[in-house]
């Protein structure tokens, strides 16, 4: 089945995007990402650790930019300015790389997005030529505004970052999906494979997660589970589920020809 995810004009076979944080070491990071089948991986931009011993391994050696599409994020930014500044550095760092994940947070306790600052940053970044995948709340109006600004993908939360609470408000996501002409990816809040399947069955184009894999007892096995869950949910969505009804019209076995009728 040819069912690719198009983001900023590029086609991806995997609808699972993963973060690279919170792993035991780079070896586990790589093993989990391989198991996940993800083609797009998020990275954070941080001050280089000055005075570190030369030759100390770096993330990029384990995840060569030739093999993966990097998605630099603005994690930890609480203002539009910081986010824009961070992504400009990321673009320089990654040789003009344009695809970025914008997130501007509202407070350090909930990590809930600040949609006002997010919109301001999105306008600047789009004008500046970035392909912006934007993390936001499940507010359908804000999601539409971000699309109108020119973001290449809108990424509403399922629940708070790192909470693993799953999809708290599927109805808002449904409205966002119905109204969007750009890809809608669920970002943040997924806690288990079933959560990922639910998101895809709602009609999401993809899911971005990190903690659900990295904080599992066995991250590599969970990464494989997530790969299958995303595919299962997607195919279930495309296959068209049976209708729900409190009472079934008909059992699965014939109601005629029962010997009990004798």
């Amino acid at each position, binding site marked *: 089945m040819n069912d690719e995810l198009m983001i900023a004009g590029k086609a991806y076979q995997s609808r699972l995007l*993963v*973060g*690279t*944080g*919170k*792993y035991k070491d*780079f070896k586990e*990071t790589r093993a989990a990402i391989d198991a996940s089948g993800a083609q797009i991986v*998020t*990275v*954070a*931009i*941080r*001050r*280089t650790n*000055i*005075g*570190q*011993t*030369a030759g100390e391994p*770096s*993330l*990029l050696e384990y995840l060569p930019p030739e093999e993966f599409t*990097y998605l*630099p*994020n603005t*994690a930890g930014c609480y203002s539009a300015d910081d986010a824009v*500044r961070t992504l*400009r*550095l*990321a673009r*320089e*760092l*990654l040789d003009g790389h344009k695809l970025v994940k914008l997130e501007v947070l509202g407070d350090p306790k909930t990590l809930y997005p600040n949609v006002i600052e997010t919109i301001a940053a999105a306008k600047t970044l789009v004008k500046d030529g970035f392909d912006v995948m934007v993390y936001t709340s499940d507010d359908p109006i804000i999601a539409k505004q971000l699309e109108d600004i020119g973001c290449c993908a809108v990424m509403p939360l399922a629940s708070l*970052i790192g909470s693993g609470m799953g999809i708290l408000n599927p109805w808002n996501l449904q409205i966002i999906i119905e109204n969007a002409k750009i890809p809608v990816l669920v970002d943040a809040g997924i806690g288990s494979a079933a959560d990922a399947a639910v998101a895809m069955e709602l009609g999401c184009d993809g899911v971005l*997660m*990190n*903690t659900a894999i*990295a904080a599992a007892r066995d991250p590599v096995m969970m990464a494989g589970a997530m790969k299958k869950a995303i595919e299962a949910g997607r195919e279930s969505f495309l296959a068209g589920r049976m209708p729900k009804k409190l009472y079934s019209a008909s059992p699965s076995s014939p109601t005629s020809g029962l010997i009990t009728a004798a």
Partner: protein
Amino acid sequence: MNIFINGNLKQLESENVTISALIVALNLTGKRLAIEKNGEIVPRSQFDSVNICDGDKLEIVSAVGGG
């Protein structure tokens, strides 16, 4: 001269140091970096030509694991 790297004061003996030289001095040769000087990004192509002056504020960043 005194400069600030990633928020910390740093003393350099010699004057007229290029970014490239600084990278060597900081033992960061070969690392994938992006550098901001006094709030302005310095393109990698200009690492050899751009000099650092006393009081400059540098941000040197790289990509790390994140979600």
